[in-house]
């Protein structure tokens, strides 16, 4: 699976892009990810030449379009040979401010994809890269190209070469089957990881590897598992007296924080995965659950009703110094720290609705991003610009949705089935 030799060959052309000096020319097509209300940037992505060329261009256009920051422009039958400079007026006439063109060729059984990104109005090349991989890995190549284009035009890392694990929900509300599932972030390559014989909840990605942790729940008890997606190796965190749930990795993947219930009282614990020693971090008689590490590993956000209703708290990673950070209207649950550490996303219940929101780790700058009958369980794209969450209409089944951090770009995720508890992977290496 891994494009280990995803040799990112800078075809010399990339220097041209890097040298693009004139600030004016760049400013014309800069995309500001902080302003989701901006008109999306029109970009045309005609079919690349060669086998799979049209498919690759299609995946790139879908990725960029779904981000809400770009508006794919129909090439109207025009082609753009990658080895010559494009006929810019053709593209500006279509309204495309940027152009992505490319060629896919098979070289010694390997797929080689050359592509360039152009500023059509300035008539300048912004990027020229070549990716090689196995032919069946063409979708990943397309995601790599999407990330390169996104990063060049927004100044932010992309998030297209990623996966999502989630809980697939099928059957009626009284007879649901829950299965762990994984898919590419664009909904391609979906597959089940568990067989549906047990309740599986809250899968969470390690920030540094293709490993997940999740909770399994059966009549005779609960367990937290670690599952390596690439090897299929699965192991339990061990036996606990009491219900164990809400697991989440530390940023370096060496620990798992979780909630452990004993005699009805849930507290936060953390297990060192190397020596398998567990340590209790909270001992409040209230409910403490949903721990989430800060990306530097120094702090843990969690959910507690110690103040009388469920609210968000932040404490040191050793369990000390807990203080409440949520003070808005309603009940706050399921905190999750952004990859850059600048925000905590959460679920808020207020006014008879559920909302996905974000706030600074000190509780300031709170923003409500979504509202519906049931919005729940946000997870961050690795670049911290987009959140995936589940949305359920009254009486319906949950679906996956995405919203950007401005709250203005809200869309159903590209997975049509019942699904909840999404967890976004880090970018592949």
């Amino acid at each position, binding site marked *: 699976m891994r494009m280990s030799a995803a040799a990112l060959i800078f075809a010399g052309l990339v220097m041209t892009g890097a040298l693009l000096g004139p600030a004016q020319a760049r400013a014309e097509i800069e995309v500001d990810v902080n302003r989701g209300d901006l008109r999306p940037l029109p970009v045309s992505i005609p079919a690349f030449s060669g086998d799979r060329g049209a498919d690759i261009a299609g995946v790139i256009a879908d990725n960029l379009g779904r981000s809400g920051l770009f508006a794919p422009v129909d090439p109207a039958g025009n082609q753009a040979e990658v080895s010559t400079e494009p006929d810019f007026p053709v593209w500006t006439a279509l309204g495309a401010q940027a152009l992505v063109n490319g060629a896919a060729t098979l070289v010694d059984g390997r797929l080689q994809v050359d592509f360039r990104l152009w500023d059509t109005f300035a008539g300048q090349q912004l990027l020229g890269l070549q990716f090689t991989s196995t032919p069946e890995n063409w979708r990943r190549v397309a995601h790599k190209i999407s990330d390169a284009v996104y990063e060049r035009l927004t100044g932010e890392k992309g998030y297209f070469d990623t996966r999502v694990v989630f809980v697939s929900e099928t059957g*009626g*509300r*009284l007879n*649901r089957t*829950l299965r762990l599932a994984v898919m590419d972030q664009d909904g391609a390559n979906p597959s089940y990881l568990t067989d549906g014989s047990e*309740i599986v*909840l*809250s899968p969470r990605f390690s920030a540094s590897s293709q490993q997940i942790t999740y909770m399994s*729940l059966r*009549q*005779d*008890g*609960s367990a937290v598992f670690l599952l390596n997606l690439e090897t299929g190796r699965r192991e339990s965190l061990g036996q606990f007296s009491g*219900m164990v*749930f*809400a697991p989440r990795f530390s940023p370096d993947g060496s620990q798992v924080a979780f*909630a452990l*219930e004993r*005699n*009805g*009282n*849930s507290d936060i614990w953390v297990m060192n995965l190397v020596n398998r020693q567990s340590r209790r971090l909270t001992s409040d008689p209230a*409910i*403490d*659950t*949903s721990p989430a590490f800060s990306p530097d590993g120094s702090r843990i956000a969690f*959910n507690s*009703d110690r103040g009388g*209703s*469920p609210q968000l708290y932040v404490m040191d990673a050793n369990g000390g110094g807990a203080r409440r950070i949520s003070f808005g209207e309603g*009940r706050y*649950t*399921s905190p999750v720290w952004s990859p850059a550490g600048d925000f905590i996303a959460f*679920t808020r*219940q207020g006014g008879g609705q*559920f909302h996905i929101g974000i706030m600074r780790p000190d509780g300031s700058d709170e923003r409500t991003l979504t509202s519906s*009958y*049931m919005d*729940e*369980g946000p997870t961050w794209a690795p670049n911290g610009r987009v959140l995936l969450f589940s949305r*359920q209409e*009254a*009486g319906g089944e949950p679906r996956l949705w995405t919203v950007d951090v401005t709250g203005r770009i809200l869309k159903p995720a590209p997975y049509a089935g019942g699904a*909840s*508890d999404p967890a976004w992977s880090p970018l592949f290496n």
Partner: protein
Amino acid sequence: MTRNNALRWTVLLAAASVLAACQSAPKPQPETSPPPAAPAADAAGASSDVQTVRRPPPVSGTPLPGTVQDFVINASDRVFFDVDQYEVRPDAAVVLERQAAWLRRYPAVQVRIEGNADERGTREYNLALGSRRANAVREHLIGLGISPARISTISFGKERPLDPGADEEAFKRNRNARTAIASGAR
């Protein structure tokens, strides 16, 4: 064992309810005219030559003592909670008295208390809330003299609703703790 009992009882119950339905439902009106050969009833009441078929006497069903069905029907297996609460309400305490009495009568029975929450909460919080409810019921039963060793708990959070609805009535029903017989029933 338990499953066999459940099956038998299901059959019995189904039969009983069919009978009950026959007794109480209005007589079906024939959609077609009666067969021409059928003797017409005399309006003057000359019924001496009319054959009648007696309805069979009713059959009532009742669970065998000590079975899961006995517990569910005669003790009641669920108690309900207020929003966000896990305190045992007075109406629940009455049910738990019955459960405890039943459990005292059948000391081999082990139970599992399953805590449940309505869907107006997030998953991980509701798992914790369900645990509290299950544990509150466990503590209450212990207070009524049931050995702690006979009672385990689990929380299904909002994952196993009793009522699929999305209204207050459904939420009310879904905030519950179910006392499930884990083993030892007859």
